[in-house]
């Protein structure tokens, strides 16, 4: 048995400990005001969704383009329903070109609409004092920014995204 085996055993023990601790400990006390965000990447740039604005996420969903429709809008089947999938990178002017993302986020406000993004980075509980609202741009899709140790992450407002989609549909 060498050092690699020791490391694997330690990792396994750590996992087991963490899993069991979750059931052993009492429920956590009410947390201070926090906002739960889904960290993603779209067009090579970091963004985030408020988990409260999402109905679900999925990966590897097959997307189909409709004839005479924009390249950034496709349709997919999700939980027995047909939904419209819009490219988040195409909608965000600050993002780069879409990289053919395989993730979709279904909007809670309108489950028939979903946003396509490239990569899921995780879920973070962020204190509100680290979130800085973006002022002076009520029509913008990014409502706030989150500055962490590595970069600045824009928080996308699903509500504003839906409003823009509806306006463009009219």
């Amino acid at each position, binding site marked *: 048995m060498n050092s*690699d085996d020791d490391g694997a055993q330690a*990792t396994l023990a750590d*996992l087991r400990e*963490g*899993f069991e601790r*979750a059931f052993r400990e009492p*429920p*956590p006390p009410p947390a201070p005001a926090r906002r*739960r965000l*889904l960290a993603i990447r779209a067009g090579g740039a970091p963004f985030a969704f408020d*988990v*409260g604005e*999402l*109905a*679900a*996420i*999925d*990966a590897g969903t097959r997307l189909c383009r409709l004839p005479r429709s924009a390249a950034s809008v496709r349709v997919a089947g999700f939980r027995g329903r047909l939904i419209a999938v819009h490219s988040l990178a195409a909608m965000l002017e600050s993002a780069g070109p879409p990289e053919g993302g395989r993730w979709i986020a279904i909007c*809670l406000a309108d489950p028939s609409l979903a946003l396509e993004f490239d990569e*899921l980075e*995780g*879920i973070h509980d962020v204190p509100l004092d680290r979130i800085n609202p973006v002022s002076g741009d009520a029509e913008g899709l990014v409502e706030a920014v989150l500055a962490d140790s590595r970069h600045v992450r824009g928080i996308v407002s699903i509500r504003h995204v839906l409003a823009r989609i509806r306006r463009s549909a009219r």
Partner: protein
Amino acid sequence: MKHWTFGGKLAVALTSTTLLVGVMSVMATYALGTVVKSKGAVIDIHGERLLEAKNLDLIAEGRVAEVRGYLVTGAPSFKAGVAENLTQFEAKLREIEAAGISAEHAKEMRDANQAHAASIQVVFGKYEKDKTDASIGTYFLEEVVPAFRALREATGRYSVAVRQQRDEANEASTKQANFWASMVQLVTVVVILLSIALGYLLVSNLNHQIGAAVQHVQSAATQLQAAATQQSGACVEQAQQVTEVTTTAEELLTASRQIGERAREVAELGARAEAATASGSETVKDGETSIETVKQQVDQVVEQMLELGRKSRDIGGVLDIVNELSEQTNILAVNATIEARGAGEAGTRFSVVADEIRKLADRVATSTREIRSMIDSIRSEVNTTVMTTETGSKAVDQAAARFAEVTAAFSEISEIVVNAAEAGRTIDLSTNQQTTACEQVTQAMTEVAQASREAETSAQQTMSTAGELVSISNELMRLVRRD
């Protein structure tokens, strides 16, 4: 003419001079003959004519004596003598006419002779008629004597004319002789000038050629002298070198003897090496067998490594499944978190469980990535090991091939050792022969040294001779060229 020989040029010059002298001689002979002929003609023809004129005079004189004899004696013989004299005179006159006398003189003498004959006939008639006739004397004095004088004058004028012709012919002959004498003198001068010119050309040409030849001889003699000097020096040096060669040959003789001894030792060592080579061949064969075993083991290692690589790929496939499961779990956990959020306070505990599941899925994903990294590292190491093992297998193959070559080399070495031993014996024999040859070389070198000394003496003689040749050529050059 440039390539003519010296004798040829002399022959041409002498022949040309001889021809010119011959021409001059022919011309002089012709001139002399012409002069002699001319003078002879003067002497012969005109002397004869003078003589005949004198004869005519004498005949006429004899006639007078016959006439007087007849008139004194009355003897018929004188009369017959007169008649014969007339006949003789006429015959002589015709003879002179035939020889070319002028018609004027012939007519004058004939007329005078006939007048004299007529007067004689008249006197004879008177005498025969009357011997005492006093007119006979008168007639004789008045007719016969004048007629005789006229005849003498005629013959005298003829003689004068003959003399005049003789003088003219003599003068013409003298002129002709003078002309030919001048011609001969002119030709002589021309011949002399041509001979001088020819001689000058010949001498100039010969001087030029002889001078060039003498210069060549002088140059050759100088070169010969230098060569002889060099040869003399070379002979001295050669004698020294021969001495060195003799010393070297003696050293070579000693070395040959030592080589013979070493060759015998080599032959003995060859026999020992042959035995050692046979032992080495056996050892090499054992090594070859061991190499073959190693090769088989290396092949097994390679096969096992390849199997390990295949297994690693299989593990990678399983990891893909685990990773997919982890991702699905993560999706479920996120969705559970979203659902718990939507459930409000009631979903708090569910949210905790979902978070733990999501964390677990994250850790599984992290571990999966680590395992994939490890497997990739293992596969890379396996590939490296396979390549190294294959390299080792090739090295083993090469070693096996080298062992085969070593075996062949040992066999070759064995043959070479045998050959070397044989060569050692041959060298022993050859060095014996070489020793003899070296002794002969030493002897020959002694003779060569003697020959070199003789050659040196000869070269010095040649040098002396070349010096004399230079002096002679200088003298010759001085003779042919005054400058």
